């Protein structure tokens, strides 16, 4: 049972890294970016290419996945996203879902439609047991990386100058500009970080969830659940939401496989009925 709990936590952690980038862009910048999964896919493919074609080790390809997705995010933010900030949410949804379809078709054309694989280094393969709990090495690694990331992000947004300026810029861009905060640059950087996180999540997820050109569509629902349940106003919300959903999904499928796939949705409905603004909602003006 504890083994399954551990598996659920690791799964939740990947969901968190995939989803938290979205809650950064959606929550902090108030931009509905459904193309988030496309950045995750990009990270995954960068990892695959770095390992297969360049022969880089797995660990070295992870930062590369982050950087590539962040860089593409930065460029796209400047070219495509910025004109969309002032538009309605519906426009943003249409625009970003269009990007998803372009990404799916483009990846299919460039990389082919088949599943992509990576080979983990030996020290990340297999599992060991502590007190009867089977612990997969890779899952432990994922938990460690994502845990550090969660702490770092939380600290970054609540304790640093960058974080407070960002929050100010989000709450009232005009006033923030008047105070001399470089709002555009701040948004660009935030968007890049959000995209980069997606890329990293995609890279970590290749081994657990697979990678093919339909990735952004296949997993969009999961990112969205994490963000809606977690709320978009903090990092802790999506973190606990991802944990809860990851564990509930895995444990549910383990205990009652007949209805297992629905548990995550049932849980979402219950949570949204009881806490419509997310787990740790902060009242927004």
């Amino acid at each position: 049972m504890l083994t399954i709990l551990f598996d659920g936590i690791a799964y939740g952690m990947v969901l968190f890294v995939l989803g938290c980038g979205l809650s950064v862009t959606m929550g902090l910048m108030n931009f509905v970016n459904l193309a988030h999964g496309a950045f995750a896919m990009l990270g995954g493919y960068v990892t695959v290419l770095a390992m297969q074609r360049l022969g880089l080790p797995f660990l070295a390809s992870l930062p590369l996945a982050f950087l590539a997705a962040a860089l593409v995010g930065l460029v796209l933010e400047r070219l495509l996203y910025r004109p969309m900030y002032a538009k309605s949410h519906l426009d943003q949804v249409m625009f970003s879902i269009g990007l998803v379809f372009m990404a799916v078709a483009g990846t299919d054309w460039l990389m082919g439609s088949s599943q992509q694989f990576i080979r983990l280094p030996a020290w990340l393969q297999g599992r060991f047991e502590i007190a009867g709990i089977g612990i997969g090495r890779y899952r432990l690694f994922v938990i460690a990386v994502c845990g550090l990331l969660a702490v770092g992000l939380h600290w970054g947004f609540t304790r640093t100058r960058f974080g407070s300026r960002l929050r100010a810029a989000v709450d009232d861009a005009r006033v923030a500009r008047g105070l001399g905060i470089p709002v555009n640059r701040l948004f660009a950087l935030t968007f890049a970080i959000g995209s980069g996180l997606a890329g990293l999540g995609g890279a970590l997820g290749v081994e657990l969830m697979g990678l093919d050109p339909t990735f952004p569509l296949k997993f969009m629902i999961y990112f969205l659940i994490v963000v809606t349940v977690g709320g978009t106003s903090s990092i802790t919300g999506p973190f606990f939401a991802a944990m809860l959903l990851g564990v509930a999904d895995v444990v549910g499928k383990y205990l009652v496989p007949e209805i297992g796939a629905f548990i995550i949705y049932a849980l979402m409905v219950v949570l949204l009925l009881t806490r419509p603004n997310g787990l740790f909602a902060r009242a927004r003006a």
Partner: protein
Amino acid sequence: MTLRRTILSGMLGLALAGSTSTLALAQEALKIGLILPMTGPFASTGRQIDAAVKLFLAQQGAVHGGRKLEVVLKDDTGNADQTRRLAQELVVNDKVAVLAGFGLTPLAMATAQIATQAKVPQVVMAAATATITEASPFIVRTSFTLPQASEPMADWAAANGIKKVFTVVTDYGPGIDAETSFANKFKGAGGTVESVRVPLRNPDFAPFLQRVSEAKPDALFVFVPSGVGAQFMKQFVERGLDKAGVRLIGPGDVVDDDILEGMGEVALGTITTHHYSAAHDSPANKAFVQAFQKANPGMRPNFMAVGGYDGMVLIAKALEATKGDAAGDKLIAAMKGASWESVRGPVTIDPDTRDIIQNIYVRKTEKVGSELFNVEFATITAVKDPVKARK
């Protein structure tokens, strides 16, 4: 000057167009509507079949029974509504004599009515649910059925000291076909079976594999659509089930030749029963694999490619038998009972069910040279689809 040149070139153009159309009339090209998922999650199926069809035309030529075959390829993206619409267009507008392709069960089913009404043979090259050929008297299949591939596994397992099996299948038509046909046969042979079904969109196999590891079966019987197979295998090994002595068995989809190489060592030792392996040991198959790989660098033909290639063989054979007469009922009559030496071994189209009768091989995934292959080590000859055979 320029005017004269325009008139001249215009006349030349007309003359050329005229000559090609009379040429076409003389040859009376016969159109085959090939509907495949070329994009979307099942695109690898479409690509394998498309490549095989092209290879057939390149190797055997386009003229059969005095008619020149012309393949019209359409992409249905794996969506049944699209398949139906495309089939209708192909029959009504393009006047195709044969419909072919069909990557998935719902796609083949969606077209069955059109085939019946238009009296156009529908050659199913991939979809593998047993009941498909019953949907229309014009459906012929050159791929396989899941019960056909799964039941021999039950016999093999029972004969090789496996008593307790846990089955994990994807919860949709073919998965349920594989599970029930295996389980019934295996229970009949005195074994015990426990089963779980995995949702079609399932990112993580951990919970299901954990159940398996606690049940401690002798073997795990698995059917998942081929793309997901690699994920499944990796997690099977990650969980240490291979070391715990659980054997991995199933129909061949999980060790699909198309992605086997990418899976790596985790696939080693898997025992599967299937109708085709790229490593099938015959001169015809060696030539086929070589030609296929030469025409499509980086791709290895899998069971989908073989279904596509044999689909073309069947159409060509039928045309030769009718001496170029492409009337649907005559073609179907000629296809019934057709038999030939395929690259997978001898095959026959069952005249009663229009389904393929073929050898099923027991294979083990091994390293051959530096590459992974499913090496066949036993043959069960002339297997009919057991579901229809029992009726």
